[in-house]
């Protein structure tokens, strides 16, 4: 039973009534979509009746039409692809670096001693605060976007890797000592699997940050991507474009988060 299901049992005092497979699924889906659907309905009605000025908030219908048009002329898919490509590139770079540095930091007290202060100072600087220097150093090409994404994704992965390894259950360390397990095997078979759940949740937060950072970076310095679409819509006074871009950011963020969550449950099966 999932944690959520257990919690539900606690609250109701009894296990949830068994639902038929399809009936249960359909009902759950309906409940899941009820609130956004109601919101959309109210929004559309208010727009149709003229309560909302279209230049402030265009109707869902208008946004949908803009969406269909920008899919038809390939502009939206291209922007999405560009942004997703940047996120993937920056995130992979950040994740690999953060994993490697995190493992070394957690396992080597000396390395940790030398680097701690630097990381402590760099960590609180928001990724967005790096944008000016990134543009100054790297221009407005791809590398400045990758840089910002890197900064955003690095710290969650790094911090979780270090703390996941540090908080390895000392009882397992004793087992390894009693069995005279060589250090390399110990790290591979005890330390990393033991830290895996925490590392994975760091990766999840990192990916989330990467997605937030790409939008921010593209809003300030770019000629393509979802963030650019957002800024472009504002400059051309096209609120339908702005809101479309926002919705796309939200939906894609949700989908990637779901994928990583699924990876988590697939990898951590104990």
């Amino acid at each position, binding site marked *: 039973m999932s944690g959520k299901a257990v919690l539900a049992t606690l609250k109701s005092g009894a296990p949830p009534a068994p639902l038929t497979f399809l009936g249960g699924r359909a009902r759950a889906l309906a409940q899941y979509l009820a609130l956004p659907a109601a919101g959309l309905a109210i929004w559309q009605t208010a727009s149709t009746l003229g309560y909302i000025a279209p230049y402030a908030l265009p109707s869902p219908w208008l946004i949908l039409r803009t969406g269909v048009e920008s899919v038809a002329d390939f502009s939206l898919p291209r922007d999405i692809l560009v942004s997703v490509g940047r996120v993937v590139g920056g995130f992979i770079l950040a994740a690999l670096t953060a994993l490697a540095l995190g493992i070394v930091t957690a396992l080597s007290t000396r390395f940790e001693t030398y680097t701690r202060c630097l990381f402590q100072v760099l960590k609180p600087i928001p990724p967005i605060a790096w944008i000016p220097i990134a543009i100054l150093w790297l221009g407005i090409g791809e590398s400045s976007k990758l840089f910002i994404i890197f900064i955003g994704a690095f710290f969650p992965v790094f911090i979780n890797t270090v703390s996941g390894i540090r908080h390895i259950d000392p*009882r397992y360390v*004793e087992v390894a000592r*009693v*069995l005279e397990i060589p250090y390399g095997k110990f790290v591979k078979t*005890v330390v990393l*699997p*033991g830290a895996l759940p925490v590392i994975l949740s760091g990766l999840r937060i990192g990916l989330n940050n990467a997605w937030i950072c790409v939008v921010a970076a593209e809003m300030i310095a770019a000629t393509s991507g979802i963030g650019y679409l957002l800024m472009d819509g504002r400059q051309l006074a096209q609120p339908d474009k702005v809101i479309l871009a926002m919705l796309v950011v939200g939906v894609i963020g949700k989908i990637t988060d779901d994928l990583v969550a699924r990876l988590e449950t697939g990898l951590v099966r*104990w």
Partner: protein
Amino acid sequence: MNGQVAVENLNKRFFSDSGPLEVLSQININISGGEFISLVGHSGCGKSTLLRILAGLETEYEGVARLDGQPILKPSLEKGFVFQDHRLFPWLTVAENIGYGLPKGRDKAARVAELIELVGLTGFEKHRPSQLSGGMAQRAAIARALGTSPKVLLLDEPFGALDAMTRITMQEEILKIWEKEKVTVVLVTHDIDEAVYLSNEVLVIAGRPGQIVSRVEVSLGRPRDRLSSDFNHIKRKIYRYFFTEVEPPFAFSI
């Protein structure tokens, strides 16, 4: 040399914020190779600490602990340890856990199969620890400790968390293993019945700091009858160190 364990004039204290804590005092033990010895005592009297010293997990103390004449300075494969909580790795299967301490090689798989057979876990090779009952997990932990053929097997209340029925089954299992593997066994337990049923000698530890207050030899044949009067006579001898005996009123005694 064959698994002879000796402890000479051992004193152990822990240092904490509230000052030093004397845990063991003047412990002297001599166990011949292949013997089955139990340590019984109240919780907190230092049984686990003593066992951890024998395992080489605890190295700060006065006195000497020896295995086959050599001082015990660190953990090694000669000393198998089964912890009270089974400590199987949750991300490994039963077979992987049992084979964990074994060197890679052609005979590894065969050895694992042999161990699984020995502890009666055939059919559960691919299960994860979370899918096992407490008794099965403890058996897997025993198999893991036996895998490297230690000279001495150190068991820290290995059946403490099991129900009475499973516990009796496990006691039979451990006897079978002991007879087959001819390994020295040091068992920590707070179950006097278990100690008398299994061991050649029961060491009673009591007091703070813990001291050996009695060594009770159990010279009963095997298999032992838990209900026999000899068995209960020995049990009563040990009980006396923990509970003040209530004299039955004169009228009821024969």
